[in-house]
């Protein structure tokens, strides 16, 4: 089974990379671009076939390694 873990910086954590991208979009002539935030997506393949169990497994992986919960939130979805 394949899962996707989306990781985003928490509200309030400064994202200078997002700011730089927003600035570049403005320079390219894209009008009205507000806040830009950059995250990451990790796709995982697991042997587990039950989607609830696989989701729980991916959640444990995110808590332990994939995300740092001091600064990041994550969301697990089955692909």
């Amino acid at each position: 089974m394949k899962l996707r873990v989306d990781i985003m910086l928490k509200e309030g954590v400064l994202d200078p990379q997002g700011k730089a991208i927003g600035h570049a979009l403005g320079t390219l002539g894209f009008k009205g671009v507000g806040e830009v935030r950059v995250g990451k997506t990790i796709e995982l393949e697991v042997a587990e076939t039950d989607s609830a169990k696989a989701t729980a497994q991916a959640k444990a992986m995110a808590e332990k390694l994939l995300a740092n919960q001091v600064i990041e939130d994550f969301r697990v979805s089955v692909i």
Partner: protein
Amino acid sequence: MQVAVIVFPGSNCDRDAAVALERALGKKPLMLWHADTELPKLDLVVLPGGFSYGDYLRTGAMAAHSPIMREVVARAAKGMKVLGICNGFQVLCESQLLPGILLRNRSLKFVCRSVTLRVENNNNDFTRQYQQGQELSLPVAHGDGCYFAEPDTLKQIEDRGQVAFRYIDNPNGASRDIAGIFNEKGNVLGMMPHPERAAETLHGSTDGVALFASVVKALA
């Protein structure tokens, strides 16, 4: 007294740290590979600067889960001293030996120059040979040195005197100009500036010497 430097794939300040330690100690420290699972009896472990595991995922994140770090975390809980410099500081945060995390520099630029720091707490085995409030010139070389922690955590570390060093001229946007912090018990120190690169006259500064001398003296 037994001292070790841990070498991760991608460490690049391990030998500089070893030289600075050898001068303070009078003998060579052990060099331990990240995949080792058993630590000999040690009084001090140094996690050096560099780009462990190519900074994959987050700086220090992969190293924090390497086999040797499990043992370092367990020993630190029993009072063994741990010093993390630059990438070593990032590893200490990711392994939760220290609170908070190091984010990308606010400027998005890699900063490589000497900075001025102030000693915020010299009542610790790592900093005792400095004067309280003394200004030091140490080099920094990092892209992810912006210290961040939740407001409650920041207040806690300030109240408990866990801030070891503060930048006079903040090079990376770190919260409250924090350049280095202790853990609550004071046996773990993480710092972004490089004391091992300010350890002899030819380095341009010898302000890092007192840090190694302090901890070696405390352990003697």
